[in-house]
């Protein structure tokens, strides 16, 4: 009986990562609906008008920073898959740094936005909502990465079990994916 129970427990444990992954993907799908609603609001409410005084250079720079953070997060996950904890830790710190740099860029964007197109205008309202909503996700991602890097330092995770790190890194990529759609919506389409 004990053997049967142990077999069931083993089966449940081995199945858990797959269930976790499906849960995370469902969570990201629900977030996708929210982002899609906000992105589509820009096209419905403001058509394809794009203010002339947008800071394109700053937007391109923060986009590059976020893309760089995504490859850094990917390299951290790859490193832990091969039991290279020190490398994983370095790339996680780099990802956190790039995430914080992105947040600095967002603050600069908001400062310029308040001067050029305040939230009382249609574009300003969409801008502050979309950028703010996304920035909140970046912030939660940075907090998640901070928790994971602490656990890596303590010796958690390895090639046999790295779900916690994988989950946070996947969420980080999702945040990057959302920006890939927000950036052209706010800055490029006209």
């Amino acid at each position, binding site marked *: 009986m004990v053997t049967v129970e142990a077999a069931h427990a083993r089966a449940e444990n081995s199945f858990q990562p797959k269930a976790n992954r*499906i849960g995370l*993907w469902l969570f990201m799908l629900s977030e996708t609906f929210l982002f899609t609603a906000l992105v589509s609001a820009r096209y419905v409410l403001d058509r*394809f008008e794009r203010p002339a005084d947008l800071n394109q250079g700053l937007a391109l720079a923060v*986009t590059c920073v976020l893309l760089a953070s995504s490859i850094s997060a990917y*390299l951290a996950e790859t490193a832990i898959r091969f039991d290279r904890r020190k490398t994983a830790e370095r790339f996680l710190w780099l990802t956190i740094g790039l995430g914080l740099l992105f947040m600095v860029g967002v603050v600069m964007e908001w400062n310029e936005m308040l001067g050029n197109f305040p939230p009382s205008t249609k574009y300003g309202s969409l801008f502050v909502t979309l950028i703010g909503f996304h920035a909140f996700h970046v912030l939660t991602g940075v907090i998640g990465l901070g928790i994971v890097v602490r656990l890596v330092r303590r010796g958690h995770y390895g*090639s*046999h079990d790295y779900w916690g790190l994988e989950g946070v890194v996947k969420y980080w990529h999702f945040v990057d994916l959302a920006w*890939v759609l927000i950036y052209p919506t706010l800055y*490029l389409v006209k």
Partner: protein
Amino acid sequence: MALEDLTLVGNQPDRHGTTFDQAMRAGLVAVVALAVITVVEYVIATKVGQPIIPIIVLAIAKGWIILNTFMHIQALRSEEH
């Protein structure tokens, strides 16, 4: 299972048959592709009059690279992952 089977050292393949170098290279190729598409997007947006169609196509291409390479969406279909 022996401990050596669980601990991957050097450049041995993982359980999916991918080595550390191969995985790193795939990531770097993806980020270079993302950077090139981002620059093309920017140039189109600033030079072309009504750039909505090419920009949406390029944004979808970037999204697919992230989903496929970084988020391993295709692995969801495999039983093991």
